[in-house]
């Protein structure tokens, strides 16, 4: 559940126009961007920090065809094998009449499946808590977290970020994963509380 505790240099930008060149320069200088937290989806930022395209839509397609086959096979089984009903002498295998339900189940499976997959991949759930590098990253700041290794010179990264246009710069030691927690109180990590 926990991703591990790491040290970060965190810089906040107030404008996405400053953020983009900064991201480029930071990557060019060889620093590792842990993540950038933004208040709204900034188009092109995912490519700028080198993320690959998401495959969520592929998952959506797979759920959709699962829905289609579930609906069709279930209705065929019920009306041709399990309990064939004579409805006005019409064929038992009444494909045209099943299209509405088949369509609805296709959409239902795809939507529910995709949302659950989305929540799983992003670890989103009630009572999940994550470290926030800056409380205003959901308001008006674009917050870049650079991961430090043993070899990283913190001061150098800090001055680099300052030159790139960051407003507030600080160093934070933080848990990268998520833990069960509430936002109304400070909680220690599970393993710290239990003394692992």
């Amino acid at each position, binding site marked *: 559940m926990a991703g591990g505790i790491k040290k970060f240099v965190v810089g906040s930008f107030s404008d996405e126009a400053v953020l983009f060149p900064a991201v480029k320069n930071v990557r060019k200088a060889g620093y590792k961007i842990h993540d950038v937290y933004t*208040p709204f989806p900034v188009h092109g930022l995912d490519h700028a*920090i080198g993320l690959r395209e998401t495959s*969520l*839509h592929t998952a959506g397609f797979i759920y959709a065809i699962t829905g289609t086959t579930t609906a069709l096979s279930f209705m065929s089984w019920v009306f041709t094998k399990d309990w064939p009903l004579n409805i006005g002498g019409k064929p038992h295998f009444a494909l045209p*009449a099943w299209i509405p339900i088949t369509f609805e189940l296709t*959409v239902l499976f795809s939507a529910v499946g995709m949302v659950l997959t989305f929540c799983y991949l*992003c670890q989103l759930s009630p009572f999940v808590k994550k470290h926030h590098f800056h409380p205003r990253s959901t308001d008006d700041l674009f917050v870049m977290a650079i991961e430090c290794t043993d070899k990283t010179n913190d001061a150098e990264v800090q001055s680099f970020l300052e030159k790139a246009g960051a407003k507030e710069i600080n160093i934070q030691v933080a848990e990268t994963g998520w833990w069960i927690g509430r936002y109304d109180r400070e909680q220690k990590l599970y393993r710290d509380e239990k003394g692992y």
Partner: protein
Amino acid sequence: MSLLKYESQQREPLVGGNKDYHQVTEDIISPIEMKPSRLWYIGFYLSVSLLLFGVYSVYREVTYGIGQWNLNKTIGWGWDITNFVWWVGIGHAGTLISAILLLFRQGWRTGVNRAAEAMTIFAVMCAGQFPIWHMGRVWMAFFVLPYPNSRGPLWVNFNSPLLWDVFAISTYFTVSLLFWYSGLLPDLATVRDRAKTKLRKLLYGVASFGWTGSTKHWQRHESLSLVLAGLSTPLVLSVHTIVSFDFATSIVPGWHTTIFPPYFVAGAIFSGFAMVQTLLIVVRKVMGLQEYITLGHIEAMNKVIVLTGSIVGCAYLTELFIAWYGQNPYEWYAFSQNRANLFSPYGWSYWLMMFCNVVSPQLFWSRKLRRNITVTFFMSIVVNIGMWYERFVIIVTSVYRDYLPSSWSTYYSPTIWEIGFYLGTFGLFFTCFFLFAKYFPVIAVAEIKSILKTSGENYKVKMTDIEKADAEKFYSEEVEHAH
């Protein structure tokens, strides 16, 4: 790089005033953090009392049976199914705005989509009540689900439009809810991160699912929204199509019409947008959101109203023509006598429908009237009355005179408990909407921020100056070069 999407400076700004990102948050989130106003309490308690009256009406219906309603031998579907179709129709605008307009890249949808989607969900909740309580023995409502049972198992009839409805409405409700809530997550996180009180931190912390705004999460969120929009687009069209099948697949004169699916869908969008106008004109005024829900937004929705209203008008005339042209005496009787004859028992409702849905929206061809708040508000009510009468006309005028003249019912009028049930759903709808307006961001904060630099008023002004300077520079250089 700041302008990732270019928008012409000629276009009307979608966000008025001198705003930056923080100001947007402040404007939309701060009403949540304040104590509700007196007006809110009055409205809320009024809605709750209506809801309680509805609960009592339903209680009587369940205890004493369906006889509490004035349904009779030929009119088995009266007010309740009229109300059902009416509410489902209203529930179409939200998904249309959030899904179809997303696919068409309409920037103005960002100001109204959140509230419209909420309205959709509440309207579908209200709609669902009617077929459920109309069953009479409501404790057997689960019989509509295909589950392995001890009666055979005796399955449901998958060939029946009424069962298609069960699937369509429940899928529509689920998908709309998921779409709405996944869009809410980032905004709930904004409320959480601003929260000063412990309780608010706890509740919005739980509700926002630990959203951080990570770039990867946004990337997936965008993909999810796009695919959900792609799925919802055919879904929203399918739902009212299937509702229209409830009528169109029967052989009742007046219902047995192939034009029903497109005609119902257009009517649904028509009434849905009217309801969005009714709600948003009040919300923008009470919550001071005139800079986010601008006259431009209202005008855009009025354009949709005049378009769909005219489609509905075309459909009315087409079915009237086909009833005559089809040479089926029963069909023609239903149209010429039961409906279009003003002096028949229900003739007045047909002409009221015609006036409200076909004639009155034509006012919106005038730009001045489209941008007039009072006219729009009044028209939105007229349209909703008209659309209610459309369903009433379709249902009641087709069944009050069947093939056997001895069983013609002279007049059907609802009992107080039928009316009470309808009022109760208004109570449910407005109770939910009041709670939503108080505790949720009524405008999609993150989406407004994402269009702010292309469509915000102050940015537009700035860009106009830059473009003008550019053009002048280009012109002077060219002229210099030419000489």
